């Protein structure tokens, strides 16, 4: 039986609330299917499943908040075998003790229950408390006495509130924005505490890149028009292939990642940021990256992302956009080891071959984790990035 657990959608996520099951027992699932919607600090997230099989049992009720790693559902990988078919084989044979145990079909799930300590179960039974409604704080999410007592307390509070008919309507929008703020706070504080950042900067002439883009945009339908950021993302992805130590995570040591999934910082209008991943950006064309952005930015702003989009990034890009600050120094999103910052593109005096010209320039910064890489790697990356942007047609 495959255990499906509450996934971690980034270093800053401690728990999530199951809002809705999108599959029920008996449904077949395959890799990439959305099994549930979970509310996190980053909004409502579609949770994908990474195994094939049949949903055997749902372990968590809707509207339950559980810590990361809590068992949520059981998926039976042997989807084609019906349990009924396995039984007759045994029934026909005379009872032979040693083989009997083996012959029990592997999907007897009655015994799998909510994890709770014996003491917690005792107290819950005495107080008529439904364990499935309680979030456990013990080992592997087990419910402990403290959790039960907390639930009893909360029950009393709710009753009191109902009695005195105080209607405290939570403003959902505000809540999300607050929790998002605290998620950003937690991740960035951790980064600042743990990661020794080094910073590098390079000015890059975008004349060729933008000219190439404007030519393309003349023929593209307006819905498919490119933005400079699509080129920048593609150029970063291509450069990372040549400097792989920046496309990695740090977890006591450096672990290089083969996929290049670019986390792209999206600012929300009400404050806060969210960083969805553009998967395998090195394998996508600039047009495909733009298409990806057109899909992902509106969903990020609506806080409707998929779990893999929140958890898979291997490096981050933050881009100020035009008219804004000239340069941004990023703070690395742990456990990643680098963040690339693009300032706003603006016309600047630029000297080349002894001549002065006016060019659209961008100031690019790289913040690297000095545990994982050194300035030389970072510098090599920025030089490579420049080279790619001087040859846009090859991107």
């Amino acid at each position, binding site marked *: 039986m495959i255990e499906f657990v509450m996934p971690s959608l980034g270093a800053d996520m401690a728990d999530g609330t199951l809002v809705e099951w999108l599959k029920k027992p008996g449904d077949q699932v395959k890799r990439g299917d959305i099994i549930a919607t979970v509310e996190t600090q980053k909004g409502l997230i579609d949770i994908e499943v990474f195994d094939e099989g049949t949903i055997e049992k749902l372990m968590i009720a809707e509207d339950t908040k559980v810590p990361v790693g809590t068992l949520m559902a059981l998926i039976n990988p042997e989807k084609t075998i019906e349990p009924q078919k396995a039984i007759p084989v045994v029934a026909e044979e005379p009872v032979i003790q040693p083989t009997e145990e083996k012959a029990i079909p592997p999907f007897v799930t009655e015994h799998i229950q909510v994890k709770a300590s014996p003491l917690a179960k005792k107290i819950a039974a005495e107080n008529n408390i439904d364990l499935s409604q309680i979030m456990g704080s013990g080992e592997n999410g087990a419910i402990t006495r403290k959790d039960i007592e907390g639930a009893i307390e909360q029950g009393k509070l709710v009753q009191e509130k109902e009695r005195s008919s105080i209607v405290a309507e939570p403003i959902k929008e505000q809540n999300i924005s607050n929790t998002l703020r605290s998620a950003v706070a937690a991740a960035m504080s951790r980064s600042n505490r743990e990661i020794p950042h080094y910073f590098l900067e390079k000015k890059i002439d975008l004349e060729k890149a933008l000219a190439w883009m404007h030519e393309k945009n003349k023929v593209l339908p*307006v819905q498919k028009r490119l933005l400079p950021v699509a080129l920048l993302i593609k150029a970063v992805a291509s450069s990372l292939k040549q400097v792989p130590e920046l496309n990695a995570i740090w977890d006591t040591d450096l672990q290089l990642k083969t996929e290049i999934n670019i986390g792209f910082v999206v600012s929300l209008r009400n404050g806060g940021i969210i960083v969805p991943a553009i998967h395998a950006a090195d394998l996508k064309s600039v047009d495909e990256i733009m298409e990806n952005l057109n899909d992902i930015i509106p969903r990020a702003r609506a806080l409707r992302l998929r779990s893999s989009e929140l958890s898979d990034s291997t490096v981050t890009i933050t881009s100020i*956009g035009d*008219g804004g600050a000239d340069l941004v120094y990023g703070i690395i999103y742990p456990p990643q080891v680098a963040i690339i910052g693009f300032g706003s593109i603006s016309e600047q005096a630029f000297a080349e071959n002894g001549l002065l010209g006016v060019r659209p320039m961008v100031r690019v910064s790289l913040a690297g984790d000095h545990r994982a890489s050194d300035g030389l790697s970072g510098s090599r990356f920025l030089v490579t990035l420049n080279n790619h942007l001087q040859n846009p047609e090859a991107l």
Partner: protein
Amino acid sequence: MIKEELEKNIFQLLKKIAPETEPSELSPTENIREALGIDSYDFLQFIIALDEKLKIEIPEQDYGKITSLNSLTDYLINKPK
């Protein structure tokens, strides 16, 4: 299309992109993107929306001609379809 009707459409589209702002309070000459905090991605969405709603395609090289409410409406009214 008369100017008021055009403006009404523009306000509607801008409101959709920046729901917490009041586009109808824009002064005719101020920079729309700066006033409403619209980034390049949202601006592209606005261009797409204009195209879909008014069937007027604005090429990229004209983005500089449509920065304020006045210049935008002038552009839209004078642009041959």
